[in-house]
């Protein structure tokens, strides 16, 4: 089916347009801007829904001579992630209305969120690698603004900086990967690459570039998706407003990395791909689950848990497609399915954490106890979402986790040996997920409410998004096959599996079910001991060598110190030193070239001999020497003027009457300006020291010598000048010709004039602008005298 280019362009670019409009309409709508933004997101989401079931690509050339096209690509995976990003956008904007009531409202917040949503949709639907890169960096940039939203706090600033640095390093790695792919295949067109994934991979392998490409693309995805060792930016980013965390750090931005890997799965999957992804995935899944167990702040727990669940998705993508006994697309489907279920329950949990922080002022676990009494409805939601997060049977999280368990179990069964570590660690990580989910649940129970203050009724704009998310999770829990069908559609690039992926209420005991049950039991058992676990783990982790965070800060700190040291070495010295280095280097470069240019320096006769020249040049040299020797300002300026007028004569002798005229006019003007100014200046200061004069003389003679030889060499032979013939033929008009006179001919007799006003008219326009700008600056400088901080 032919894709509708217009609707895709609207999906991607409407949010950007709306972001610009936000600033205009904010004074009218005030906080209702949230509804406007939600409407934009809703438009995008419904347009994406109309594309449901389509696959294919469409493009429009932007600069066809440079092979720049605006290309879009749509398949099940992009529809799924796109729907998540825009749908979560709707809920986030509605929620922001309630959440931001007590905070500083500003159009920048909504504009940044809209830009973020647009760039996210851009990553998802673009089929041009360069566009994907641009949108990718735009998400990093808008996330920088959103994290630093409360930017009067230092912690916000450094957290925003950290997220920006880490994710843009990932972006640059991704660009490197794209360039590697382009260097082999010669195209940036993703749909072309995806149409022949195996041949792309084999040609990459043939050039030995497969592994580098694979590594940089995986690193790019891992940095965006907060995988170890890049996970440190995500917990720090929790200083952002909670709606931002729910949107960027659970449903959208961190999923961009997962999406990238899912996108390149058909092209890059193989043994190396599986090995790297399974390793990163299992390490992240286990370790960050442990970090979540020992977190003290609610949002930090959710952040670590997000990283852990994304590790699970990467493992899903890493499961080889060649396993016997299961469908080849099992791994891909399990990863994508978990992407959906995780986004639903994690966003709900973030929004609930926002309710706690905003309405009750609770941000850490020590404050929270017995909240059931205060907010019963939210408590029910929280318990349900936490159960999904823990993967309790018959919840949405359970089904997606089951698929992964099935994958790792089959993998271990197929390969045996060391691979059994994967199912074991998966059970471990899932039991840790049970522990931290229980911690979240137990906030709502307990004997006495720690919070004495009465709770105001929750604004419906905050409850509504949470209930929608819970409802969706519930639908997936009741009928997971709907979601699976949707996602299986996205793995259409694979041959249809012999074994369909079946998901539903387990009717008999299978190994994956046993894995789930054992992790549940283990998790509950661990929860009873979780205080001791926290203590032990915290003491191990507090050692500085283990902390990636401290490595990051020391790298940043040493870079800053190095920069400061460099500045103080180069910038704090005097202007003299700057000039000496600059001119010395400028002189050295041609000097070296001259030394290595084994060429006979010949005094050629190609320049005509004119006695008048010698006199004029002699006066110029003597005049310049007098400028240098003059010991008053006025003498220097007058001698300079003599030099200038003599140069005008030189131009006249060189058959350049126009230049000579201009030189005369300009010299006169400059002399007048000098004479006006010179009376307001102090007397001449004299020389600082004879040593300095001697040193400067040496440098000057060096420069003079270099220039002397440069001129000798460059004038010893002249190449034939076609350009002269071109201009003298074209400056006038053709005689009796039917050629295109207007475009090709100048129609004048003075060639220099024709060049200035016709052939190079744009240069002349630039020249006039420089003069106008200089005049404006002079006016400003003269006007601002004696204003402000004049001593």
């Amino acid at each position, binding site marked *: 089916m032919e894709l509708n280019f217009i609707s895709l362009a609207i999906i991607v670019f409407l949010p950007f347009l709306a972001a610009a409009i936000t600033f205009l309409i904010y004074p009218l709508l005030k906080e209702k801007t949230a509804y406007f933004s939600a409407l934009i997101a809703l438009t995008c989401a419904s347009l994406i829904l109309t594309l449901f079931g389509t696959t294919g690509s469409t493009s429009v050339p932007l600069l066809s001579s440079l092979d720049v096209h605006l290309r879009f690509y749509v398949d099940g995976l992009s529809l799924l992630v796109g729907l998540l990003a825009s749908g979560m956008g709707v809920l986030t904007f509605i929620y922001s209305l309630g959440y931001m009531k007590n905070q500083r409202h500003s159009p920048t917040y909504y504009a940044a969120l809209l830009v973020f949503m647009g760039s996210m949709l851009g990553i998802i639907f673009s089929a041009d690698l360069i566009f994907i890169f641009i949108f990718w960096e735009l998400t990093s940039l808008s996330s920088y603004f959103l994290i630093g939203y409360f930017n009067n706090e230092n912690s916000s600033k450094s957290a925003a900086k950290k997220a920006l640095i880490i994710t843009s390093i990932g972006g640059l790695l991704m660009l490197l990967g794209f360039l590697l792919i382009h260097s082999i295949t010669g195209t940036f067109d993703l749909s072309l690459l995806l149409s022949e994934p195996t041949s792309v991979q084999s040609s990459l392998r043939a050039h030995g570039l497969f592994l580098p490409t694979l590594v940089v693309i995986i690193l790019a995805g891992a940095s965006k998706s907060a995988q170890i060792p890049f996970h440190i930016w995500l917990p720090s980013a929790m200083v952002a407003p909670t709606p931002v965390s729910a949107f960027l750090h659970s449903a959208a931005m961190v999923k961009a990395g997962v999406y990238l890997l899912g996108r390149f799965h058909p092209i890059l999957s193989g043994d190396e791909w599986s090995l790297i992804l399974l390793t990163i995935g299992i390490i992240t899944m286990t370790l960050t689950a442990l970090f979540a167990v020992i977190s003290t702040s609610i949002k930090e727990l959710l952040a670590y848990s997000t990283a852990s669940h994304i590790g699970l998705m990467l493992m899903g993508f890493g499961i080889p497609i060649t396993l016997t006994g299961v469908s080849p697309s099992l791994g891909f489907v399990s990863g994508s399915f978990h992407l959906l279920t995780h986004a639903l329950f994690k966003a709900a949990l973030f929004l609930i954490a926002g309710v706690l922080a905003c309405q009750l002022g609770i941000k850490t676990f020590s404050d929270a106890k017995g909240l059931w009494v205060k907010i019963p409805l939210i408590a029910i939601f929280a318990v349900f979402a936490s159960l999904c997060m823990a993967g309790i049977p018959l919840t949405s999280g359970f089904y997606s986790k089951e698929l992964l368990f099935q994958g790792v179990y089959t993998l271990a069964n197929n390969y045996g040996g060391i691979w059994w570590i994967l199912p074991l660690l998966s059970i471990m990580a899932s039991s840790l997920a049970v522990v931290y989910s229980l911690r979240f649940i137990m906030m709502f129970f307990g004997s006495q409410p720690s919070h004495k203050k009465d709770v105001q009724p929750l604004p419906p704009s905050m409850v509504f998004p949470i209930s929608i998310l819970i409802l969706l999770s519930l639908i997936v829990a009741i009928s997971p096959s709907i979601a699976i069908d949707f996602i299986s559609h996205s793995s259409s690039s694979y041959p249809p599996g012999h074994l369909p992926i079946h998901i539903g209420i387990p009717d008999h005991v299978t190994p994956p079910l046993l894995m789930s049950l054992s992790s549940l039991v283990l998790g509950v058992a661990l929860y009873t001991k979780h205080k001791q676990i926290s203590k032990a783990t915290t003491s191990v982790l507090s050692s500085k060598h283990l902390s990636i965070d401290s490595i990051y800060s020391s790298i940043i700190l040493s870079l800053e110190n190095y920069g400061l040291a460099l500045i103080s070495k180069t910038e704090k010295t005097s*202007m*003299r030193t700057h*000039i000496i280095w600059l001119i010395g280097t400028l002189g050295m470069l041609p000097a070296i070239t001259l030394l290595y240019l084994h060429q006979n320096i010949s*005094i*050629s006769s*190609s*320049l005509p*001999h004119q006695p008048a*020249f*010698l006199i004029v*040049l002699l006066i*110029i040299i003597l005049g*310049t020497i007098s400028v*240098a020797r003059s010991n008053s300002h006025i003498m*220097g300026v007058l001698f300079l003027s003599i*030099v200038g007028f003599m140069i005008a004569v030189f131009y006249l002798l*060189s*058959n*350049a009457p126009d*230049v000579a005229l*201009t030189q005369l006019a*300009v010299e006169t*003007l*400059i002399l007048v*300006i000098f004479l006006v*100014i010179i009376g307001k200046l*102090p007397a001449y200061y*004299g*020389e*600082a020291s004879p040593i300095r004069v001697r040193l400067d003389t040496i440098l*000057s*003679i060096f*420069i*003079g*010598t270099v*220039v*002397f030889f440069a*001129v*000798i060499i*460059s*004038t*010893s032979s*002249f190449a034939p*000048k076609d350009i*002269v013939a071109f*201009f*003298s033929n074209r400056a006038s*008009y053709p005689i009796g010709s039917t050629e295109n006179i207007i475009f090709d001919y100048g129609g004048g*007799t*003075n*060639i*220099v004039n024709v*060049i200035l006003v016709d052939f190079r008219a744009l240069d*002349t326009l630039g020249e006039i602008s*420089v*003069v106008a700008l*200089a005049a404006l600056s*002079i006016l400003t*400088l003269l006007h601002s*005298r004696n204003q402000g901080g004049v001593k």
Partner: protein
Amino acid sequence: MSQLFLALTIGSLFSLGTFLLLRRDLLKSILGVIIFGQAANVYLITMGGFSGTVPVLYGGENLVSTTDPLVQALVLTAIVISLGTTSFILVLLLRVYDEHGTLDIDRLWGQS
């Protein structure tokens, strides 16, 4: 001979410009900058080769050979731009003296 003399002139213009640029008096530095500009223009015109006639055509007839008109157009543009920059730099000099009470580079640097 012409070539030697031209090289000598341009060389000494650059040399003296460098010397002036390094002077203690800020006004003299500016004179150095101006001389650099003049030297570069002279060099450019020299690269035109001086062969041929004045680049003006009469009555639409294409004359046999004119001198290189392109370098002349370049230098003409450069001269006009130098007028703008020179006058700006001079007013800047005036403001420096207004604000700091000196044009001695050593003292100016010491102040900041």
